[in-house]
């Protein structure tokens, strides 16, 4: 032991040695356009509000506070977006380059909207906009971490029944310990943290459905039960459909959450159709849906009230129909080009025309300020998320990943379209959030989780899935069916 081997070449620290950056030019260009868009929006908003301030028509908005922090909030958000981009570049994964800019633009529009609403509407960390910014940054962090860290889907695939059990437990917890807010029992308090479990529940639902449907696809496609002219798969495999229907109805009855029920059932039918390519399933599902809706309408006052408001909001325009009527006026004021950011929403008697505008009616607010042109562009952004998710699904290596990608993007897209349609009085109003735009931590975090998982799934270099296992019982059942 006289000489130690000489090391001449410098050694990178172990942490940095494994990093092989892969440039993402498309994402950077798109982020650049999004940043420019948001900057112009911020300038337009600031100028409008200052002009209004100068005219002595404050309209209940604390303009002085806005002028000092408006631009810096946007700057912080853009830096957070670029940081997320940088981390994705450093991770070296070949994941999708369209989702982050699209979602980032939606989040930025949300920030612009929250800046111009009265800041005392809500907020744990200062005003409304500051709180939304904090949540947006946490959401971006979640998105990036999930996109970089998740390299295998085994933890989702193998434990689908565990996930389903966790989801049902979450539902029951909310039912037992939940807090009633506005007639619906949706909010769960866990110590200092409160959240809406149904946002997380939708992710769990997609994971479970993807696992269940991909495992049983060959059996679902088979038709052995004849019901008149309709041919159905073996009876045991119809059970999940019935169970799903029952759960959706249960959410309506117990939680009084029409939006979540509609979303869950719609996503279930869409995934079932993607799995089997059978229109008959969808037809049966819709029949079940109509029957269930009719039943609920007969039995429950809160459902009845929602539908009555939808049919004729002007019957009680200053009471029950107030929100819906004001939202319609907002869309009408907006017209085609909109009134401009910061110019909408004259207050009625010193208060906001639309209560809950930051959670349930951001689409109406955007419709007023950006007009038809603006909200079409925003719907286009949601469409991009759906199209991209379906594209990731089409190039996935196996059924589980395909269904997971399709389900995750559809759950976000369908939610956006349900609440947009509710705001426009196309369907009865349901109190779910507009993904990435509505104020609120649970919604932002759950949707960030979804996009992060889509990014992780879009990487084709993901390790091969482990050999799947099929239960002996199922196997035996199937063999009997085939014989």
């Amino acid at each position, binding site marked *: 032991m006289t000489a130690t081997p000489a090391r001449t070449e410098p050694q990178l620290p172990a942490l940095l040695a494994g990093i092989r950056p892969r440039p993402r030019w*498309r994402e950077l260009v*798109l982020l650049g*356009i*999004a940043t*420019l*868009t948001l900057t*112009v*929006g911020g*300038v*337009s908003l600031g*100028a*409008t509000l200052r*002009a209004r301030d100068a005219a002595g028509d404050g309209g209940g908005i604390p303009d002085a506070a806005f002028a000092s922090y408006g631009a810096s909030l946007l700057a912080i958000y853009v830096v957070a977006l670029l940081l997320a981009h940088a981390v994705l570049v450093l991770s070296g994964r070949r994941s999708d*380059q*369209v989702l982050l*800019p*699209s979602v980032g*633009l939606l989040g930025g529009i949300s920030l612009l909207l929250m800046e111009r609403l009265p800041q005392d509407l809500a907020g744990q960390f200062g005003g409304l906009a500051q709180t939304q910014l904090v949540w947006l940054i946490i959401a971006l962090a979640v998105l990036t971490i999930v996109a970089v860290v998740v390299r295998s889907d085994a933890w989702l695939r193998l434990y689908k029944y565990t996930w389903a059990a966790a989801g049902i437990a979450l539902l029951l917890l909310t039912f037992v310990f939940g807090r009633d807010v506005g007639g619906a029992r949706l909010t769960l308090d866990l110590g200092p943290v409160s959240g809406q479990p149904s946002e997380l529940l939708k992710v769990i639902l997609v994971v479970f459905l993807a696992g269940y449907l*991909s*495992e049983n*696809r*060959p*059996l679902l*496609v*088979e038709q052995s039960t004849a019901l008149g002219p309709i041919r159905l798969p073996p009876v045991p495999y119809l059970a999940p459909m019935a169970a799903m229907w029952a759960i959706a109805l249960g959410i309506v009855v117990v939680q009084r959450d029409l939006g979540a029920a509609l979303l869950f059932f719609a996503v279930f039918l869409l995934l079932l159709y993607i799995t*089997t*390519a059978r229109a008959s399933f969808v037809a049966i599902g819709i029949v079940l849906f109509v029957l269930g809706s009719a039943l609920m309408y007969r039995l429950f006052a809160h459902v009845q009230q929602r539908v009555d408001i939808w049919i004729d909001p002007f019957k009680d325009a200053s009471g029950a129909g107030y929100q819906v009527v004001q939202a319609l006026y907002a869309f009408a004021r907006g017209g085609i*080009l*909109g009134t*401009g*950011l910061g110019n909408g929403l004259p207050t009625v008697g010193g208060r906001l025309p639309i209560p809950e505008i930051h959670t349930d009616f951001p689409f109406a607010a955007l419709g007023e300020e*950006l*007009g038809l*042109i603006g909200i079409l*562009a*925003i719907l*286009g*952004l949601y469409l*991009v998320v759906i199209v991209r998710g379906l*594209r990731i699904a*089409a*190039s996935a*290596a*196996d*059924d*589980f990943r*395909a269904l997971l990608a399709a389900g995750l993007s559809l759950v976000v897209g369908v939610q956006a379209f349900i609440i947009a349609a509710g705001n426009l009085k196309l369907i009865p109003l349901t109190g779910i959030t507009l993904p990435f735009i509505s104020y609120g931590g649970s919604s932002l975090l759950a949707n960030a989780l979804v996009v992060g998982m889509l990014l992780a799934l879009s990487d*084709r270099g993901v390790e*091969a*899935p482990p*050999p*799947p*296992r*099929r239960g*002996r019982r199922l*196997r035996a059942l*199937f*063999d009997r069916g*085939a*014989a």
Partner: protein
Amino acid sequence: MDAFAASLWLLRLLFLGLLYLFLFAVVRVLVRDLRAAAREPATELGRLHVLASPAGEPPAGAVFGLDAVTTIGRDVNNAIVVEDQFASADHAVLTFRGRTWYLEDLASTNGTYINGSRIDGLAAIGFGDEIQIGQVRVPLERARR
């Protein structure tokens, strides 16, 4: 209309215009991506990816694009030749009918397995399921499009 109001109006339109510029840029990326995918030959209906093959034929890691009918066995006339001491000459056939893949065991001596359980004659098989013949393990995968 004074200059301030006019420039504010232009700013509003610029914001809307930039939203559409962003959408246009995204759609261009999507279309380019779809075109690139369309150029790739996409005639295969699925693929078999050899996970383990102790005898070396087919070699582990090999990927076979599948037609509607793919025969598997030790005989050299099969589409996929499996050199394994437990494989029969005409061992199994993989077919795509309608919307589903089926695996049929051709009365082989040592049987064909899906996910570790032996099949009896014809069995439906989904993407992600693992076929085992002798010691050769090949999962069925979706075609990459």
